[in-house]
């Protein structure tokens, strides 16, 4: 969610019971503008909080002029001092899929890879590195995965210019109440995968400047999003069931929207049994 609209947004997302204490909120209000200044971001988003066993990680994302470019991520343990995280690589993602269980809360904690997966450990030893995964790596990979699979924005909020970069759509007035209840009005805010696999009927209504992302309609498994209208329809809240804790809110017919993650950073692999 936008750092500037943090207080209002947090009250809209609070339906799940998770939020920030007044101390953390005040700290964010003070430190996020400084992050924006130091790193020369155009926008700063408060991404959310991953609860470890002994501590919590607070994550922020910074965006440059092209909103669809890979975002820089920062983490903090106390909402005041932010450290930049390196971008995620494919090796990181592959390695950390093996690691299960809660985050510990200490960024220098090391998971012993040889216990988890002996082959990967052997490969690492051959290439001259130690067979461990640092919690920081796991954090980077988890944030990247969550953003990729369940980071969503409403349709029409971002527009793609002919030259390539993506900007916020100034003419976006919000989704109507009817549109807000449909899964097809929300897009994954990441590199599209399924754009070309559409029937001609679907393509006829599309606008290439707005519909350049994947919509949520064809997410697998079906039903992995819970859409609720809270407060009698003033706020539409989408909660992901695949990554429990990801909450997206949007106030229909206004420009307010955003998503935030408050959770343990674990994928819900039992989802097919639970539906």
């Amino acid at each position, binding site marked *: 969610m936008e750092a500037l609209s943090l207080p209002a947004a*947090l*009250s*809209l997302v*609070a*339906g*799940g*019971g*998770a*939020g*920030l*204490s*007044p*101390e*953390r909120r005040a700290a964010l209000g003070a430190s996020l503008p400084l992050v924006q200044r130091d790193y020369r971001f155009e926008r700063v988003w408060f991404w959310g909080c991953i*609860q470890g*066993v*002994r501590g919590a990680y607070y994550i922020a994302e910074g965006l440059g002029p092209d909103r669809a470019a890979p975002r820089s991520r920062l983490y903090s343990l106390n909402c005041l001092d932010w450290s930049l995280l390196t971008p995620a690589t494919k090796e990181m993602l592959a390695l950390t899929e093996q690691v*299960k*269980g*809660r985050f510990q809360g200490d960024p220098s904690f090391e998971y012993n890879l040889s216990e988890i997966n002996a082959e990967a450990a052997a490969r690492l030893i051959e290439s001259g590195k130690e067979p461990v995964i640092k919690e920081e790596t796991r954090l980077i990979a988890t944030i990247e995965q969550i953003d990729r699979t369940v980071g969503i924005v409403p349709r029409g909020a971002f527009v*793609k*210019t*002919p*030259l*390539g970069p993506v900007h916020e759509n100034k003419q976006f007035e919000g989704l109507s*109440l009817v549109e807000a209840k449909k899964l097809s009005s929300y897009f994954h805010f990441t590199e*599209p995968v399924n*754009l*070309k696999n*559409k029937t001609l009927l679907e*393509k006829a209504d*599309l606008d*290439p400047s707005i519909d*350049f992302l994947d919509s949520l309609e064809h997410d697998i498994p079906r*039903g992995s999003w*819970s859409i*609720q*209208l809270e*407060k*009698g*329809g*003033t706020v539409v809240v989408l*909660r992901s*069931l695949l990554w*429990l804790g990801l909450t997206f809110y949007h106030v229909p017919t206004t420009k307010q929207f955003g998503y935030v993650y408050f959770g*343990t950073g674990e994928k819900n*692999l*039992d989802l097919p*049994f*639970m*539906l």
Partner: protein
Amino acid sequence: ERGHGPYQPHEPGYGLDQPGYSPYEDEIPDPQAQMLAIKNAKAYLLKTSTKSGLNLYDHFANILTKILDEQPTNAVDIIENISKDVKWAQFRKKMDTLRDEHLIPPTFEAAEKCKALFVKEGGEEEHEEVEEEMGQPSLPNVMETAFYFEQAGIGLNKDESYYIFLALKNLINVQPIQTCRFWGKILGLEMNYIIAEVQLREGEEEEEIEEEGEETIAEGEKELGEGEEEEEQKEKEAEPPKSTYKPPPEIPKEANGTGTNKYVYFVCNEPGKPWMKLPPVTPAQIVCARKIKKFFTGRLDAPVVTFPPFPGNEANYLRAQIARISAGTHVSPTGFYQFAEEEEEEEGADTYEENPEFEPPPVVEMVESLTMWAHHVKGILNQGRCAWINPSQKSEENEEEDEEEEEEEGEEQQEERGPPLLTVISEDEGMKDIPAWTAQASTNLIPQYSIAILQSNRWPGAYAFASGRKFENIYFGWGHKYSPESHTPALPPSAQAEFPSGPEITETVDPTVEEEMAFKVAQEEALAEAEEEEDEEGEDD
């Protein structure tokens, strides 16, 4: 890599939707694509607006005409005003005589319900009567609890907390309630549940038990009547072999007011909607709830389709999960509660009272050591109850044969013992290397006003806080237990053993025609011999 977007500035004559460059790859030959794109664009511009009856194409044409006629200076800076002027000139009265139906979005209904919560109870006379008879029911201070939990970053936003406060007040006025507490919120797919934990006044609970008893007696009589009829019918028909399967005896649920049914729970989907009472929980439901993991939909009458089949619908599943969460995560500072009579510190002690001599330890100690917290709800045994019961003792209504068999089985079952009430939580087992509880202080910057916060790792979403003499438990979550391994559903039971095969049921090959003829001849000979014998016997007589 190919660039993004339909327009490639470096291509000669870059136009719309050239094949091979658009994100939607349609295979259309070149010039036709361009013509088609132009036609589409023009068609879009010619679309008539539903509100004003104008279309963009004509509007642009009019603007350009006006500009070329009038030739204003700095036309590009005032283009918006020119556009507005042209629109004003085009103004036509709305010709449609029908007014659009005034759509009432559902927002307003919900707002009305919330407003209804704010109505103050009328009828002061009723209030006085109630006060004379019983002590006033205690409405929990939801806002105060919300404030403390907010220090930890947990809780709903203030408006919702206040609505819940008012809804609880309504509940107390409607139902005969002795104590009441906001238990928490469980999220569901379509709607959420707001849950209140309540203790009814004593008279009310007895009435319910009597009603239930009468119902079961009536059903029992009906069953007996039907059984007699069935037996008569069976004697007439040939009976198939009776199954020797006897289902394990049903474990009775705990009486209202004890064990898992100590509290009664009311739920509603949103504050303002009517409160529904959840039925008491049975041990079979708890045992089954441990094996399944399902999201709640938000409708109490939704079926729960699982294997092993859950005995009940979503209301029962919700009640079972509430019972498990309460038993696992309701804690209080050690020493706050003590056993009612100091001599009887048995495991069966179910009641506790507040300790008047309790001195709250400092927050630092509460955070550092988990021995400062204790469970005040009895844990649930594997059987599904808090107090173990031997199922064979209950058989007063069964036949004598059943009793003998059940006693044999009863000897095999061992009595289960759980940890006694008021055990400290440091004895809770962790999972792998994750402790069962995480304790934190709400703030490190202002230690004199910080409070101790406990988060449960076994039931993510269960929190407890303590500050001085005040403490509270709450739950916000999806209602599932945390397990480090993935959930493995129960396998179906192995196929039952078949009837042991013996000569009487093994198939034999059908006799051939020759064998049949031989058999027939042999039979006739035997008959003839028998007749001769009879004749001989007859002659003898």
